[in-house]
């Protein structure tokens, strides 16, 4: 396994031989290695201080406002419009990412061509490039006088400062998630399986659709969910190209900022709670999908 697969991949590959013992209640497997209490204690305290306690502040704050205040904020037409745009554009962008991510993974794993190394290295650019930089770059490219925008303008197609711009930024940001989840699984497919399909008379397309694609489905869905989760919360790369018109091209994270600028902490918190709950649900789904992917791989 390449040590450097980015981000949320490979969640719980069990340690070699570690599942032989079932640990008892709160006990750990007997080990002669030192430092367990210190390492675990430090990790848990640090996790609580940096992540858990601050996150719980959002829920407590929102509880102190009460259900009415929460509901009033969330169903406000301008907020609803921002949710619609954020979820809608993220879904479409994640779907495009799934399609092109699969294509990228396929071409990178199966074919050798000029520039393959460059493509493989730069696929992770959206991870590495600060979002504000991506944001102003995309806005400049797709503006009416930009490299791409000036080509599309005669066709009557405006991208910058419209909801389409939001979509373009989200496609940019989500691509590596799918490529990097599908790529290792595709590398693991044994050639024998495809050869068997070919021997049995399947065409190349049939082999892909009936043999390879089902095998890739868990990884593909994981990548889709990761890209979607990232897209829904994305802020920096979107706000420059979105134009941020109320009811038209405002994304949900921007609504939080807007509420904060009006010192409406309760309102900002209410939107944050909706987004956090969605993140938690997505995280659970992604964990389930990853377990599924690994079961599939181990079953071979």
């Amino acid at each position: 396994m390449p040590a450097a697969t980015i981000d949320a991949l490979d969640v719980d590959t069990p340690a070699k031989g570690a599942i032989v013992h079932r640990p008892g209640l709160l006990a750990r497997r007997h080990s002669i290695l030192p430092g367990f209490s210190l390492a675990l204690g430090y990790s848990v305290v640090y996790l609580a201080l940096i992540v858990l306690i601050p996150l719980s502040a959002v829920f407590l704050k929102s509880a102190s406002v009460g259900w009415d205040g929460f509901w009033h904020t969330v169903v406000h037409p301008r907020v609803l419009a921002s949710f619609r745009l954020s979820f809608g554009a993220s879904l479409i962008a994640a779907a495009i990412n799934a399609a092109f991510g699969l294509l990228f993974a396929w071409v990178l794993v199966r074919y050798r061509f000029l520039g393959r190394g460059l493509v493989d290295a730069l696929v992770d650019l959206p991870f590495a490039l600060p979002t504000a930089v991506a944001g102003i770059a995309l806005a400049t490219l797709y503006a009416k006088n930009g490299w791409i925008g000036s080509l599309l303008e005669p066709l009557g197609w405006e991208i910058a400062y419209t909801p389409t711009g939001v979509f373009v930024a989200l496609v940019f940001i989500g691509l590596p998630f799918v490529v990097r989840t599908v790529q290792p699984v595709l590398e693991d497919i044994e050639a024998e399986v495809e050869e068997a399909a070919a021997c049995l008379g399947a065409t190349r397309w049939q082999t892909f659709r009936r043999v390879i694609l089902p095998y890739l489905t868990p990884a593909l869905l994981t990548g889709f969910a990761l890209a979607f989760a990232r897209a829904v919360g994305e802020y920096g790369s979107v706000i420059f190209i979105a134009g941020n018109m109320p009811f038209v091209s405002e994304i949900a994270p921007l609504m939080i900022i807007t509420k904060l600028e009006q010192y409406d902490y309760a309102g900002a918190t209410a939107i944050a709670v909706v987004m956090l709950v969605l993140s938690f649900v997505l995280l659970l789904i992604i964990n389930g999908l990853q377990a599924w992917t690994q079961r599939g791989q181990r079953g071979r």
Partner: protein
Amino acid sequence: MAGIVSRKGLSSTPAQTRPSATDEPVLVRALLIGLVLAFFGLFLLMPLAVVFAEAFKKGWEAYASGILSPDALSAIRLTLLVAAIAVPLNLVFGVAAAWAIAKFDFRGKNILITLIDLPFSVSPVVSGLIYVLLFGAQGWFGPQLEAWDVGILYAVPGLVLATVFVTFPFVARELIPLMQAQGSDEEEAAVVLGASGWTTFRRVTLPNIKWGLLYGVILCNARAMGEFGAVSVVSGHIRGKTNTMPLQVEILYNEYNFAAAFAVASLLALLALVTLGVKTFVERRSV
């Protein structure tokens, strides 16, 4: 594995005379590669190229003056400072968490792994908001902090906290699978031979994980220096004081000072390229 190697060998021969049952027709291959290259150029290369093109549009002098302006310099200093605090904090946490998770068995391990990942799935804006709710004037600790005259929000500590939050999982995320795959046989042997815990870690574990650790730190650093959403919420945008480089880029861009905005942005883009270079290097090393 052998099958994949031989397939790769086959398709790398430029003039392929023997069509294989598990290869696609040349035309299909060319079409797929063409599609990938087109998408790659449009969505990845062009945004990168436009950063440098815009940065140097008005020449070297405009570029230099964009980077060397007092506000930009103080933004660079602040970004380096924040990363210099946040990255070591998460480095220590990452090593500790990976040690506990990879080398020992305990209940709730999977929950712990999931919780470590949590900051990845939280929107950057929400990551900033939680610290406003804690330390803002109306927050839990706000009034107390005000009484003591301690500034966290709209000051360096707030920027550090938000950055630590968003970069929290990076090092742990790299180390956990790596150390799990390596098991703990070597460490156990060292301890049996009488090495102390620290010596075992330094002489046995560290050499094994150094490339993964380096990559985790590099990723963590790239995100720490480039973070925008979370930092933007807690910074207060005080020029020359609480503006990091990405925030400086935003301000310059919104003032239509494009040359300067892209000049600062080009430094961040260079950082991204260096990060990807290290990543490629580490991957080659570990194969």
